[in-house]
């Protein structure tokens, strides 16, 4: 099983569009494909595929810390260990947990010598599974479909890394059961926690960008992140014929990555996209 991430530093470069088309292309090559929408704050692969999210297959919970005041000796170790600055303690007072900063890592519970920190389960997201039945286009080769797993964070959840981690875990065991050949992770834009969680452990990351100054700047960031995470990269240049790509080429060279594909601007894809018939477009 190949684990491939579709990512980009910059938003709006065409991650989801390319992820969906790439999944379809692999299906036509007779591969068993699972597409995982890891953009949990705003998943939209299902929309591109004309699907609805109905009953969640699974709910995602994390354990937030909760103080047992009877056991707490106000030692302050939990405040020192917290990397999210989610614990505050005034002198000689009990520590206070600030939930929207907390990533539920559990470090405070581990470090507390008096076992005064208990946990409280709370739902932070949901997982949906859709079966994309065969390609509706008449050109479709095999008529075989693919699976879509969608992760969705609950509104107001600020720390969505843990949602992605659990979506991935679910997807990997799902893929194992279904004997999937290619598992595609469509990540969020940016280089923050939920993106890192999605990229970790992938065999390859396609970094989508566009020939604009901002596209170049954010490509540098995402390539740097992938290098740090030891994930090999290939670059896909979208709307390649519109801007100036010298900057992109320079950055790609700097990171010893390569431009795998240049996708020219196409009005056809825009039209199909807006009609919800994206799968009619052939990505070569």
């Amino acid at each position: 099983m190949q684990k491939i991430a579709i990512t980009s530093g910059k938003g709006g470069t065409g991650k989801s569009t390319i992820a969906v088309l790439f999944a379809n292309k692999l299906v036509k090559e007779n591969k068993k494909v699972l597409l995982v929408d890891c953009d949990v704050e705003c998943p939209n692969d299902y929309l591109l595929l004309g699907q609805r999210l109905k009953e969640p297959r699974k709910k995602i919970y994390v354990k937030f810390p909760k103080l047992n005041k009877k056991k707490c000796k106000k030692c302050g170790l939990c405040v020192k260990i917290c990397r999210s600055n989610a614990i505050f303690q005034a002198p000689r007072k009990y520590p206070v947990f600030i939930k929207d900063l907390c990533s539920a890592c559990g470090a405070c519970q581990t470090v507390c010598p008096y076992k005064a920190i208990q946990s409280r389960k709370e739902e932070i997201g949901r997982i949906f599974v859709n079966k994309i039945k065969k390609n509706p286009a008449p050109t479709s080769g095999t008529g075989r479909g693919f699976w879509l797993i969608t992760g969705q964070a609950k509104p107001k959840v600020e720390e969505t890394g843990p949602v992605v981690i659990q979506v991935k875990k679910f997807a990997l065991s799902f893929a194992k059961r279904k004997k999937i050949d290619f598992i595609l992770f469509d990540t969020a834009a940016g280089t923050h926690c939920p993106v890192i969680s999605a990229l970790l452990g992938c065999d390859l990351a396609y970094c989508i960008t566009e020939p604009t100054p901002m596209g170049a700047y954010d490509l540098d960031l995402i390539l740097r992140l992938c290098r740090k995470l030891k994930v090999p990269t290939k670059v896909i240049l979208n709307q390649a014929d519109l801007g100036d790509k010298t900057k992109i080429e320079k950055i790609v060279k700097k990171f010893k990555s390569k431009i795998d594909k240049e996708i020219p601007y196409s009005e056809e894809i825009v039209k199909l996209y807006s009609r919800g018939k994206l799968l009619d477009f052939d990505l070569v």
Partner: protein
Amino acid sequence: MKICIATNKSDFNSAISPIFGRAPYFLIADLENKNFKFVKNRATKFIRGAGIAAAQTVVSEKVKLVIVGNIGPRAKVVLEQSGIKVISNITGTVKEVLERFKKED
């Protein structure tokens, strides 16, 4: 009384900081003993939760009042819960703010 003023630089001619969590320095002023010191804010580079970390620094100095240009909701709540008064929406140099504070006391 000990008060805290968030500042841009570590001197009295510096402007008061428009932000709390990522203010570069805090002036800790002990007004009775005429004891003044600038404390570096370790939270300036934090991506998230800078306000809480900065509040932690300020609280450990045992001040009773914080003067700042603006302050985030989380930092404000934890400071006030610790019994520290917060005055925001203040501009000017550190010197001016101190004099104004003494006058209005």
